[in-house]
């Protein structure tokens, strides 16, 4: 790390801790190539098992296909690891150092992150080595099984669910019945579960986390920058993604109404749903011109309740239809009974090849009959389908 930058880090840290009352684990800053940042961004961690789906993400980030240049990455760990891009300008590095301090503070203090492992970087690296060894032993089976696990986990794991609901969760149900699986399959199940649970709060509290990091960055730099630097910062600030702006504006409104102390409280206890439900106001919706596009293409500024309900649904479903396990029937019959309740406008066609491909992944983990039941809004009885592993299609029962 550059000596001059190290001095700046010390100064910024002093402002963050002494003047603003932030509290975070030591941060290890690393100046790395943009390619290495792309690698971490696509995998989620510096050393993680290899899978082709991360490769798709890596290509997107590395070839400039992503939405924007990645300036930094920070990992929830003790010590926190932060990676700054070598391509950043000097001032950009100062922005991201302050931003990282906001994230590190959020990781240490927010309730959603407190129960997480603070050593996931090392754990994932060990897991990656084991997966490499398993590949030597089992070959392509490992990648196929990982694809199935990633596929089901990414559409099922959601820690917003209550603990008792986990019994009905597709991934957790399969995990609970993985006793007969081979040893390597159990290991992969454990690994995916642990890693997905580590990542889940990041999604769960993304607006609150990014908003807090941006708000902290703003306040740290306000104390530190000269007018020329502030001008640079203002230009960069205007280009931040909308999630950052939304979070920032909510914290800013809390600060104006209730002071800095209240902001510190909010960052400790909120996930995104609580955050927007409690603190998003119509003023912010109007200011950010949040709304829904009409058929004519015109934007209609939304009512606060509509915005909140839309955000809550997005957070709960991760943009993906949620399948539930019928545990009673499954336990009785030994087959896997999955059901899905269609809401108006949320119809799902199980015969579509893309959905069939998903059932194929479930079958790969379950290895027994799969019965899928779909309930439509107006009908009392659901429609049943059976997955046929021979022809790899769904059949109507």
């Amino acid at each position: 790390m550059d000596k001059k930058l190290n001095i700046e880090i010390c100064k910024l840290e002093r402002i963050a801790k002494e003047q603003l009352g932030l509290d975070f684990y030591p941060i290890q800053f690393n100046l790395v190539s943009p390619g290495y940042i792309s690698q971490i961004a696509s995998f989620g961690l510096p050393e993680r098992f290899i899978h082709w789906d991360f490769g798709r993400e890596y290509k997107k980030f590395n070839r400039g296909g992503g939405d924007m240049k990645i300036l930094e990455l920070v990992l929830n760990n003790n010590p926190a690891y932060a990676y700054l891009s070598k391509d950043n300008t000097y001032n950009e590095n100062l922005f991201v150092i302050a931003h990282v301090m906001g994230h590190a503070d959020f990781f240490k203090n927010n309730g959603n992150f407190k129960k997480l492992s603070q050593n996931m970087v090392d754990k994932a690296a060990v897991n990656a080595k084991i997966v490499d060894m398993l590949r030597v032993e089992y070959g392509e089976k490992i990648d196929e099984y990982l694809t199935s696990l990633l596929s089901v986990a990414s559409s099922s794991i959601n820690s917003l669910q209550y603990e008792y609901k986990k019994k009905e969760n597709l991934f957790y149900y399969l995990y609970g019945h993985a006793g007969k699986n081979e040893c390597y399959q159990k290991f992969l199940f454990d690994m995916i579960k642990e890693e997905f649970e580590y990542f889940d709060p990041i999604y769960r509290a993304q607006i609150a986390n990014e908003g807090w990091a941006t708000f902290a960055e703003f306040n740290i730099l306000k104390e530190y920058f000269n007018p020329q630097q502030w001008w640079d910062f203002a230009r960069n600030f205007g280009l931040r993604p909308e999630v950052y702006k939304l979070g920032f504006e909510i914290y800013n409104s809390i600060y104006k109404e209730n002071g800095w102390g209240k902001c510190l409280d909010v960052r400790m206890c909120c996930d995104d749903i609580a955050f927007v439900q409690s603190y998003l106001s119509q003023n912010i919706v109007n200011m950010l011109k949040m709304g829904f596009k009409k058929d004519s293409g015109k934007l209609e500024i939304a009512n606060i309740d509509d915005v909140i309900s839309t955000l809550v649904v997005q957070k709960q479903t991760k943009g993906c239809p949620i399948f539930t396990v019928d545990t009673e029937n499954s336990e009785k019959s030994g087959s896997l009974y999955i059901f899905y309740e269609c809401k108006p406008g949320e119809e799902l066609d199980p015969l579509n090849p893309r959905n069939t491909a998903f059932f194929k992944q479930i079958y790969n983990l379950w290895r027994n009959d799969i019965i899928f039941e779909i309930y439509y809004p107006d009908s009392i009885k659901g429609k049943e389908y059976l997955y046929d592993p021979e022809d790899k299609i769904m059949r109507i029962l």
Partner: protein
Amino acid sequence: MKRINRGKIAEDAHEKLKRSFKDKIDLDLLLQKEKFIDPETHKIKFETDNLYLPRPFLKEEGNGNGSKELVFGDCADCDGTLNIPDNGGGLDNSAGAESSCEVNYVEFSLEEFIKMAQEFLIEDLKLPELNFVMTGGNVKEDREYDDFSRFGALDELDIDQTFEDSLVRHLSEKRTGACILDPKKDGWYWNEIEKKVSDVMVLEEYVMDISGSINPETSKLIRKTVFCLWYYLDKFYQKNERKYIFFNDNAKEVTLEEFLSVEPVGGTRLSEGIKLGYEISQEYRDYNKFFFFFSDLDNSTNDDEAAYEYIERVLEEFDYIYIARVNPNKKNLTGFYKYVEKLSRDNAKIYIFDLNESSIKEMLLYFLGQNGQKIKY
């Protein structure tokens, strides 16, 4: 310690998976180019089912969960859509699994498509692999990633053993000991000594008859042959000039895309195609020149004399001439066929053969075997 690029390994695995879709590729697709080639990007698209992680999806694509789409009115850096699972800009939030709701397409440039179609055809025809490498540094990328991945980290490797294994592997695969060690590759690979081929300038001309007597099956056969020829010529010459000409009553120089997708129509004047090929070649002094001529040789009766004249000129100008007769009908040998057959008896530079599914293989084996020795490289 050198850091292993896990991203590159994963990207390579993704590319491999993409390439596994090559069995869906058929040259006929190019004939339906309106359907597959994007008019704006000129990319060739194939719909796939499992390039992204399979996830359940609703009938209404794009809405994801069926909710309304929330947008920001003055979003400066995007289309205004509030994209909650945002990966860019800082904190990475996912396990790389947020993309299943995207449209599942594989996209190839025309060049990529041709390379994949070539490999598919080479496998399909069971044509031989070239057992020599013309340029240095031809490392098999796949193997690199697999090997690193298998062993996990460089510092765990027994380098001496690795050197030995690598050399043995090299000798068995390449059947040559003429190699140098590339220190940048940590002794993991052996590169062939580079042969000086880069200075050789080559012109390839592909002249195709598109008159009405050439049916679609025949034109497909021609394309298949041309694809296979490119595959091998690419190995010899990295920077070849390639010219594509088609002719019926008139001749025209065309782009690769046109060459691949034209429909047969009109009469036949062989001299037109040969003449244009000759004229184009005049612009390429000091080149090695290959002339590939595909036709049923069913010429207009009043054109034979002109065709004889230009084929003689082409013979003087080009290093090798390959004349492939399609729709062979031995009972009705045309005047032009007899003329070039006589030429081929007297001149080793000209080859004439009947083109059908099985003769593609024979022709290429001949090209690689006997003629390959004569090619300057």
